């Protein structure tokens, strides 16, 4: 893993509180995998003190560009949203293990919830060469990134809690209705914990392999602080360095 000063190529609002940023770094684009993340220092001050862990969402090797999507939640991400093209950010990465992608001739479901849809883009791009990819995207109200998913997906299901676009309700419900017809035999999921827990249960019930990308508050991002430890059937594991991607069958989800 590297500590790099990276130039920001673009930083723009997509919808509401979701932003897209392009960061230039040749080394990280070469090393980075779908499901890994970056630790970004949003300024050179003591506040915010910690870096912000943000998933690698797309890698454009030719342009030496890493694309990240992030949601403005607190002070740190607010400051990140104010960074201008040409500015330099200090970045540690790529961090974490990433998704296991060595598959062929599978019927794969990608299930994303909220900002959790973004890390599935690079994954879908890589998997769609040799597999059939079905994407299921869940949002609260406004939707984004559907066009990106259309590029590599055999079909797309979209849900919004508000009902503004697509199915009114939770994305897991669309997936449940289709999983038999589409003969899904592999699941990748990223999103809020209750969603992942439900998907893990469905996967278990239907005997389908399932990888989930988890999120926890963390300080370092490289395994030192033990802030992001979770319970698994193999004992305590760190979301940052043992994950963030785990087999759903090994995670013991919190209540």
């Amino acid at each position, binding site marked *: 893993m590297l500590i790099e000063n990276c130039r920001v190529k673009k930083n723009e609002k997509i919808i509401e509180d979701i932003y897209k940023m392009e960061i230039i770094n040749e080394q990280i684009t070469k090393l980075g995998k779908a499901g890994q993340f970056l630790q970004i220092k949003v300024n050179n001050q003591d506040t915010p003190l910690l*870096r912000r862990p943000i998933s690698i969402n797309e890698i454009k090797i030719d342009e030496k560009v890493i694309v990240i999507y992030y949601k403005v939640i607190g002070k740190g991400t607010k400051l990140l949203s104010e960074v201008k093209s040409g500015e330099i950010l200090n970045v540690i990465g790529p961090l974490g293990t990433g998704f296991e992608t060595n598959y062929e001739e599978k019927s794969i479901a990608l299930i994303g919830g909220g900002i959790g849809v973004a890390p599935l883009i690079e994954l879908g791009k890589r998997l769609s060469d040799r597999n059939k990819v079905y994407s299921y995207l869940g949002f609260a109200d406004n939707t984004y990134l559907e066009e990106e998913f259309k590029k590599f997906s055999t079909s797309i299901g979209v849900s919004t809690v508000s009902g503004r676009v697509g199915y009114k309700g939770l994305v897991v419900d669309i997936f449940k209705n289709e999983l038999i017809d589409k003969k899904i035999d592999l699941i990748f999921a990223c999103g809020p914990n209750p969603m992942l827990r439900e998907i893990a249960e469905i996967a278990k019930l239907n005997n389908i392999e399932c990888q989930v990308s988890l999120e926890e*508050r963390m300080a370092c991002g490289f395994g030192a602080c033990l802030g992001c430890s979770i319970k698994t059937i193999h004992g305590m594991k760190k979301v940052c360095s043992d994950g963030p991607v785990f087999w759903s069958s090994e995670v013991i989800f919190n209540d």
Partner: protein
Amino acid sequence: MTKSLNTTVDIGGLRINNPITVASGTFGFGREYENFIDISKLGGIMAKGLTLKPREGNPTPRIAETSSGMLNSVGLENPGVEYFVKNELPYLKSKGVTVIANISGNTVEEYCEMCNILDNTKTDAIEMNISCPNVKQGGVAFGTDKDIVYNITKEVRKSTNKPLIVKLSPNVTDIREIAKSAQKGGADGLSLINTLLGMAVNIKSRRPILRNNVGGLSGPAIKPVALRMVWQVSQVVDIPIIGMGGISTVEDIIEFLLVGASAISIGTANFINPRVTTDLLKELEKYMIENEIKDINDIVGKIKPY
């Protein structure tokens, strides 16, 4: 280090090559930082806090960010002292690292048993943690009463021939009294300070951000408190002090040495810049040259108070 400079310091009978060590709980067992730095360059590593039996720690969230600081409620997640001796210590020693094992117990007997186990190993020193704010038994409960501190230090002293450093809690009325008790009980050195007990709240959910409700505050926010405590304690004890609390620059290090610390630990800053220790070592050497300091010990305690 340049030959003409002396950076060797003594921390209670243990001589270390330079005064820069790392605070327990911020550096794992060293391996996590090997992707970034040569860990043998450090004065020493205070390894992740150990208990007699493995501990899972507290539920998440365990981290909350605050102004110029962070709260943690990890709760001493660790694989236990025997695992450390078998799987982590040999590796660190093979790398030439000075290893200070940090121990926490639920009872005096547990501290003594851990010392017995560590005494037959290549551990260079023991840091006795009587100041963890995140565990129900032991921890800070031992560290806030001067009579208990005296008794526990006296008993643990009998269980080890290694240099014994006692890590003190800032969550006390008068840290000088606690420090004197540790010295009287036989401590060879003192580490101060551990984290300050704090809290952060999510006003939307009306819940604390930490699942443990409260946690230990660290980072630049606590540096003034740490400096004040090191200064106060250095005036009432004769044993070396390892100063820590929010250090992230070479100026911070100098401040701690001036108020009486013989060595320092870097903690939270490691999370933000995993190369901070070796960066600061270079800067310290540069500072010494620029300010014509031949021996780093020459500035220890040289503050000129009003």
